[in-house]
């Protein structure tokens, strides 16, 4: 592994204490006779109190990373190699009991379909009580009081601890799940597409609230989405994933102003603008590769507009040689042959 990679991933743009660190993480889905590499030698760190965005299309491996950090991967998925360190301790080597303590207390997760992860037969407050009693010595009354406070924290009325999930709107259920994720004061909250099912106004209301709470409480967030425009606004640093690899990472403003990887540029231009001329935009041609047989060389070359047989030397590299992440600016890493040539 080259030195630039090591430096770039362990030293974020703002020097912070590292909370979670993925080192050369490899996750495979092993099916009868074949194996699909969903996460391929990924290095990623989240600092204390940092909001890190992880963006990419469906199937790029971003949710697999979230589940790997939570140690929730189940067969056929497996961590084949690499480390997942939380405050220096390798999670892949923890016992089941240690992991049980670790989840919710140290790292909590808000899932994509979190709205539907509440038990429909139990009052919301009782679900808080169950979770808190599993982790802490706490009386039911104290847990309910804490639940009510948490509901207020996420912008809901205290009385909703007595509600059943079906009595709440989608946005309110998502707020409830976020309140639950905050209940034990975790240092990291992983949010996997938390607002995808919600409309824009509710999405903004919830993210504003999370950002306020993050500033008050100081937890870190790993925010996973395919919506890059949202990430640029919300996160400190962004990593872009394509076909199981991180292809670019940088501070949000740097990534927005000077994206280097053609895939990042494509994702950015996939959003129709709300102002300026109304003209046809193409976005990214084609669709993501089948990870069972990923393309040789740069995995993006089959969709890359800069990959052209007319420049034979570059074309040969693009189609045969895997690009590695190199530092192109402070904390800005790119894996692209074009950048190497510049």
């Amino acid at each position, binding site marked *: 592994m080259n030195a630039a990679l090591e430096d770039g991933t362990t030293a974020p743009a703002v020097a912070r204490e590292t909370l979670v660190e993925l080192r050369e993480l490899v996750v495979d889905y092993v099916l009868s006779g074949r194996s699909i590499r969903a996460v391929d030698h990924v290095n990623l760190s989240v600092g204390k109190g940092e909001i890190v965005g992880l963006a990419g*299309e*469906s199937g790029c491996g971003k949710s697999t990373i979230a589940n790997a950090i939570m140690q929730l991967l189940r067969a056929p998925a497996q961590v084949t190699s690499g480390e997942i360190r939380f405050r220096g301790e390798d999670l892949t080597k923890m016992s089941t009991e240690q992991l049980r303590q670790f989840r919710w207390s140290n790292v909590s997760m808000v899932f994509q379909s979190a709205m539907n992860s509440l038990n429909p037969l139990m009052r919301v407050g009782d679900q808080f009580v169950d979770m808190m009693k599993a982790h802490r010595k706490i009386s039911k009354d104290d847990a309910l009081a804490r639940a009510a406070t948490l509901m207020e924290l996420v*912008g809901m009325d205290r009385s909703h601890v007595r509600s059943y999930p079906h009595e709440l*709107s*989608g946005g309110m259920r998502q707020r409830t799940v976020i309140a639950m994720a905050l209940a034990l004061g975790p240092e990291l909250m992983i949010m996997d597409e938390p607002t995808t099912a*919600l*409309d*824009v*106004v*509710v*999405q*903004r*209301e919830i*993210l*504003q609230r999370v*950002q306020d709470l993050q500033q008050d409480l100081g937890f870190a967030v790993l925010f996973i989405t*395919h*919506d*890059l*425009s*949202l990430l*640029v*606004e*919300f996160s400190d640093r962004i990593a872009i994933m394509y076909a199981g690899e991180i292809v670019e990472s940088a501070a949000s403003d740097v990534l*927005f102003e000077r994206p280097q990887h053609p895939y990042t540029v*494509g*994702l950015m231009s*996939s*959003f*129709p*603008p*709300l*102002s300026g001329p*109304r003209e*046809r*935009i*193409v*976005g*990214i041609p084609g*669709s*993501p590769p089948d990870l069972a047989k990923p393309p040789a060389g740069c995995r993006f070359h089959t969709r890359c507009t800069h990959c052209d047989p007319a420049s034979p030397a570059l074309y040969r590299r693009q189609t045969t040689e895997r690009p590695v992440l190199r530092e192109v600016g402070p904390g800005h890493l790119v894996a692209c042959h074009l950048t190497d040539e510049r």
Partner: protein
Amino acid sequence: MTVAAVAGAERTLDVQGLSKSFPVPGASLLHRKMLRAVDDVTFALKQGTVTALVGESGSGKSTVARLISRLYTPTGGSILYRGEDVGAMHGKQELLQYRSRVQMIFQDPFSSLNPVKKVDYHVSRPLLIHRIVPKADVLDRVHELLHSVGLVPAEEIAKKYPHELSGGQRQRVAIARALAVEPEVILADEPTSMLDVSIRLGILNLIHDLKRERNIAFLYVTHDLASARYVADDVLVMYAGQIVEHGPTDEVLQRPMHPYTKLLLSAVPNPNAGLHSHRLAPRPKTDLAVDLVGCRFAERCPLAVASCVSDPPVLLERRPNHLVRCPIVDPST
């Protein structure tokens, strides 16, 4: 995409004073509360034109599409298809005929296709049911249709099962199926919201091309204002069951008048500004079941004055072709 072209286009479908109320579950039978999901909605769909219907979840926008497709029966108002009252159509043959002219595309391409049937089955069924082409020509037409929605090689795609396709490809199959009956109107209910951003553009571009090549009138139902701006000629903004703003896309989205349209615009992610740059005001929840007298947006509205709560606002043309349901706003700004 010009305003003049749109104004001159032929009206295919007229929606007049359309209303739909649902009984509120749990309320007592004697004092049955009704939820006014759609309240006095009027607009027209025109040939070769995309009309966007935007609003938040629960605003009634999907209900409007379902009323037009006759999945629901209206409680008031009328739908005229080429001048003929759709509500008066009852015979099986008549309805079949109407449904072959007005097709619907749903949000979720994962659940709108039968998982045990191949693509050619899905696209050939409407061809057979509506007897569009002789049986011998069905497969050729299926390939043609798949090709026209960008699914190539069509012969190979036709033999695949839905699970072998990506979300974007599945949505294209749903569009090919809708096109099979050569409809004049397509109602697309959030057709891109479950797709990846990079795939969404392809579907939007396809809608744009179909509108031009086949002169189809589209109703594009969405909560995504940026995509509405990208693909639509006209925009209708819906709030709590009512149209609050209506006009040509550039008018409504570049010079919005209604405070709700402004709120929606400010909520769209904007990488040029932080989340804190334009914070949204906290909202009280409008209860649609309660018979509100005045403006339904009043309690969330930054401009609200006393009369807003007592006087129902009327949808009025405040600028040329630009209608707004708010007496407070100043049309000159």
